[in-house]
Every structure is written in structure tokens, then in C-alpha cells.
């Protein structure tokens, strides 16, 4: 007998014990006897004496202990000393050579709002105010369809900016062209748009409905809180106007709100609650990406944020137990990741499945990297992505290259965090911005606990809302 406990995170709640196996992202519920055997083996079971001691401490009979250990070994929670940390075949393989399925089309590099924290500098992305022309937009659409694998049946186009609705004409034309291409190529195309909502008109509502576009409206708080953060260039606030203009969209359903959380709007509970009451289908919060002391979160701010996330997650769980879905998208996303057991080398699809296209034809790792010369993957005017360059960047930013993350239990779910946050704060997307890691880990733990609780109190919820068709009792 020579066994050690592999890398695990134990989660205790009222009457169940759960264990998350880090190398494979597997989550188990276990009874208290099994948990105590696993905990008791923390220092290793190196000799028959250590096994005898464990058996004596557990108060179980030796055959039962043997059976428990056998099962723990089968599930690789207990392993021979040289075999810890093995991801085995369960790691999600990065598809670094595959075609792109999603294009973020920067139709307008300009904005009618002047949010102080904007990483794109009011939409300019280190350049001059520009609108994408129609010809360029069509080139992008054609590139997306031309490079796509025959197996890919569904493509996505996101209209982005600056404020994309400032270039409605090109949005319409690009959407029409994409639909034509989809018809000819026998594929489908999904549209989404991220907008500040100030320019929405009845005509735009009809257009977005006609292309079945998923709409995300950026709002950073309620009333004056939003107005301080998201003013027009004149200084006037935008909240009342936005809510008024998007009312017909809200009535159609399917509108999400996106809240950029800064030091100045940490009350996420109030923001999320109020926006859901106003008719948004879901609300997601994302810490600001600014490198500006007036906005950036620091230690105590992360605690306030986590506290708020905790309250909202509790609501999500309580609703889930009743078989209803609460529209707090952060926890919904993490529950999905835990359910699938994400075990990834990359945190997101940037450069893998998704690329951003700027008005001048430059294609970047993702929307936030637009305007950064080192992260340009190619130019749509010159045939699109340079696959060599793409692989080079992807190799650079993958998790296995990151010693900072190598001892973090959350590494295969988090996969090193947003490349752009790392780039902004550490000067290089391949270096980890460790400042927010305690927050990230606490948040992932909350997600594991939420999933474990839902699976024990109402597992059907997962089959209904998280993974349609998933059979919980198999």
C-alpha cells in the first residue's frame, strides 16, 4: 500500500460532503465515512500501519475501509505517489488549428458616450474615430464563411464598437450579406450586438427582431450611479433615456444587461435586482479592465463584490430549487462550467474560435486587443489570419506556460484569467495578474458549492436549464 490523496478541494455543507478533483475537474458527492477516510489519508497511506491506523480512527470495519479505498483509487482520488496531477484524457483539447466560428465586427470606432473607464478610450482603440465601410464588412463576412470548416454549421457575428448603432447602415448590410452567404453555404448565422442603448429607435428594434439578434445593453447601475459612469460627452446622464428607448426591446424579451463593476458601483445586488425587475432577461457583471485607480478594484472592493455575488447566487440557488431560473448570468455561467467540468488550457475562445475585425481590416486576438499591434493575427484585406502568427500567440498564452498558475487549484477552470487583463496589468497576456486570484478562487468555489447544492436539492434543474436533456439520475 503506497497511496496519496491527489489534488482535491473539499467542500462541506450541511449534510453532504463534496470533493472536487483538480486534475480532471470531476465533482463527487460522498458520504461522511468516505470523506473522513479521504481526509484521514491526507498525509499518505504509505504502509500497512498507516492503513491500520486509519481503519482504527474511522471506527469502520476493515472490509468497509478497504472497499472505500478501492473506490477512491478507481476514481483517482487516491493515487500512487508518482501519479498525482494527471489530467488523463479528460482535459479539453484546445482546437488551435481549427477555423473560427465567431467574428466580432467593430463596425464603429467611435462612441456617443464618454465612459471614463473605457478600455477602448471612448471607442477609439488608440486610433481616430472611424466607421467600418460596407465593402470591408462584406470582406469580413466572406472571410468568415470561406475559412470555416465544412463541419461547422453555425457561425456567429457580434456587432461591436465603440457604439455599433452609430453605423446602422453597415450593420444592416453585413447582416443581409451574412444571411445570403449562410443560405448559399447551407449554414446558419447568429447575430448579437453590444450597445449602450442610447440610439435605439423603433426602426432599430424591428431590424434587430428581423435578424433575431441577441441584444446586450451596457448599464453600470441604477439612475445616478449609471449616469456618473456612463455620461454623454456633454456630461448628461444616460440611464433614463436608455431605459426609455429600449423598452420595446425589453418587451420582446431576450435582452441582457452587462454591468461593468468599478470601485464606484459595487452595489451589484441592487443593480442586478433592479435591472431584472425592469425586464432584462439576464444581468451579468464584469470587473472593470481599466488600470485606473479611480475605477480598478482592489482588496476590500473584491470582498464587497464577492459578498454581493454571494447574495445573488443564493437567490439563484433558491429559485433553482423551486425549478425556476434567476437571471444572474455570472453564476449561471459558472454552474455550466462546473457541470461540464471545464478543464481547459485557454480561458476563452480568443484566437481559438473567435477573432475581432477592426474597420481598417486588422484582425485581433479579441475585441479588447484591437489596436494593439502585437496581437494582430492578420488582415482581412490580405487574406485574413496568418496561421503561423496565430499559433505563435496561442502557444505563448496557454496555461501550461504559466508557472504562476501551476499550483492554483482553480487552474483548469480559470485557465489563467482574461488575456487582456493580464496584458493590461502585467504588460503581457502570458503573465498572470495575481492580484485578483483570491477573488477568482473564492468565486469558483462559490460556483462549485452552488452546483453541488442544486444537484443535491433539485438535480432536474440542471437537465432543464443548464444542459437540456441531461439525465441526472443515471
Amino acid at each position, binding site marked *: 500500500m503506497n497511496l496519496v490523496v491527489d489534488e482535491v478541494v473539499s467542500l462541506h455543507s450541511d449534510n453532504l460532503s463534496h470533493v472536487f478533483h483538480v486534475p480532471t475537474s470531476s465533482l463527487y458527492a460522498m458520504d461522511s465515512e468516505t470523506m473522513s477516510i479521504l481526509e484521514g489519508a491526507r498525509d499518505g497511506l504509505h504502509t500497512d500501519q498507516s492503513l491500520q491506523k486509519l481503519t482504527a480512527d474511522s471506527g469502520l470495519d476493515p472490509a468497509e475501509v478497504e472497499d472505500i479505498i478501492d473506490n*477512491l483509487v478507481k476514481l483517482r482520488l487516491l493515487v500512487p505517489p508518482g501519479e498525482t496531477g494527471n489530467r488523463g484524457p479528460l482535459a479539453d483539447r484546445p482546437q488551435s488549428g481549427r477555423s473560427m466560428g465567431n467574428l466580432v465586427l467593430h463596425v464603429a470606432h467611435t462612441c456617443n458616450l464618454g465612459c471614463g473607464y473605457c478600455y477602448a478610450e471612448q471607442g477609439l482603440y488608440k486610433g481616430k474615430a472611424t466607421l467600418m465601410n460596407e465593402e470591408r464588412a462584406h470582406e469580413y463576412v466572406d472571410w468568415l464563411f470561406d475559412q470555416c470548416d465544412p463541419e461547422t454549421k453555425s457561425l456567429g457575428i457580434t456587432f461591436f464598437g465603440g457604439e455599433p448603432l452609430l453605423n446602422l447602415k453597415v450593420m444592416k448590410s453585413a447582416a443581409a450579406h451574412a444571411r445570403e452567404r449562410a443560405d448559399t453555404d447551407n449554414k446558419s448565422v447568429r447575430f448579437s450586438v453590444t450597445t449602450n442603448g442610447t440610439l435605439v429607435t423603433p426602426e432599430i428594434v424591428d431590424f434587430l427582431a428581423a435578424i433575431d439578434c441577441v441584444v446586450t445593453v451596457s448599464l453600470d447601475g441604477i439612475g445616478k450611479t449609471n449616469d456618473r459612469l456612463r455620461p454623454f460627452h456633454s456630461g448628461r446622464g444616460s440611464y433614463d433615456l436608455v431605459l426609455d428607448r429600449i423598452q420595446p426591446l425589453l418587451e420582446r424579451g431576450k435582452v441582457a444587461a452587462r454591468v461593468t463593476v468599478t470601485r464606484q458601483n459595487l452595489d451589484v445586488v441592487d443593480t442586478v435586482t433592479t435591472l431584472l425587475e425592469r425586464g432584462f432577461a439576464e444581468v451579468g457583471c464584469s470587473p472593470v479592465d481599466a488600470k485606473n485607480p479611480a475605477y480598478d478594484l482592489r482588496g476590500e472592493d473584491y470582498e464587497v463584490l464577492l459578498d454581493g455575488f454571494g447574495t445573488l447566487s443564493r437567490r439563484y440557488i433558491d429559485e433553482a430549487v423551486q425549478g425556476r431560473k434567476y437571471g444572474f448570468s455570472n453564476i449561471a455561467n459558472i454552474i455550466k462550467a462546473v457541470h461540464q467540468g471545464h478543464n481547459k488550457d485557454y480561458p476563452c475562445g480568443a484566437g481559438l474560435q473567435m477573432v475581432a475585425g477592426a474597420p481598417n481590416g486588422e484582425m485581433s486576438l479579441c475585441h479588447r486587443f484591437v489596436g494593439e499591434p502585437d496581437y494582430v493575427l492578420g488582415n482581412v484585406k490580405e487574406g485574413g489570419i496568418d496561421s503561423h502568427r496565430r499559433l505563435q500567440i496561442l502557444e505563448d498564452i496557454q496555461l501550461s506556460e504559466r508557472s504562476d498558475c501551476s499550483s492554483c487549484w482553480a487552474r483548469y477552470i480559470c485557465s489563467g484569467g482574461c488575456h487582456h487583463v493580464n496584458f493590461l496589468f502585467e504588460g503581457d497576456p502570458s503573465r498572470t495578474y495575481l492580484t485578483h486570484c483570491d477573488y477568482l478562487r473564492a468565486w469558483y468555489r462559490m460556483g462549485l458549492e452552488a452546483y453541488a447544492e442544486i444537484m443535491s436539492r433539485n438535480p432536474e434543474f440542471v437537465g432543464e436549464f443548464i444542459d437540456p436533456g441531461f439525465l441526472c439520475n443515471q
Partner: protein
Amino acid sequence: MSRIKPLNIKARAVEASTDRDVRGYAFGDCCASFAPGWEVGTQDNADPCPWKSDLSLCWGTCYWMGQVPDYISYGEWLDTCGNIQNDWRNLCTIPDNG
């Protein structure tokens, strides 16, 4: 395993892989036994089954030439597969040298 319940998809996959772990016992060399080969081994290179990586192990020592391309005519057949665990999809059993 009534005491442990796999919850998420990965946990179910681990449990399922324990059920189909059909490693056998050899009487000599890899072909004399019911050796499942690396593709069903559950732990790749760290699998305790000595035949877990029969491809990379066999080419050196196995007498059963039919299992792998011969290394003299196809010197590079394993080149794209430096690490079985990560690169096995790149393996080509008969390389296209033409």
C-alpha cells in the same frame, strides 16, 4: 459505489472509464494477452498498465512487426507525436512518405 456519487459530466466520465478498464495480464510480450492498448488506458503515460502506450513502446522492442510501421523504412513515423498523451491524434500508422 453507493458511498460516492459522481455529479458532473467529468466525474461520470471518470467513473465510466473505470468500468471499461479491461486491462489484462500478459504472458510475454504485448500480443500474448488481452492488452487494451493505450487508447483505452485511463491515465495515458501514467497508466499502471505496461501496455498503455503500446505504440511508443512496441516500436522498439516488439517482434510483432505488423503492429507498427517498421522504423527503418519509416524513420519519422512517430515524429509528430512527441507526447502520446497530447499528440496521439497526430499519429499515422502508415506514414505517407510519397
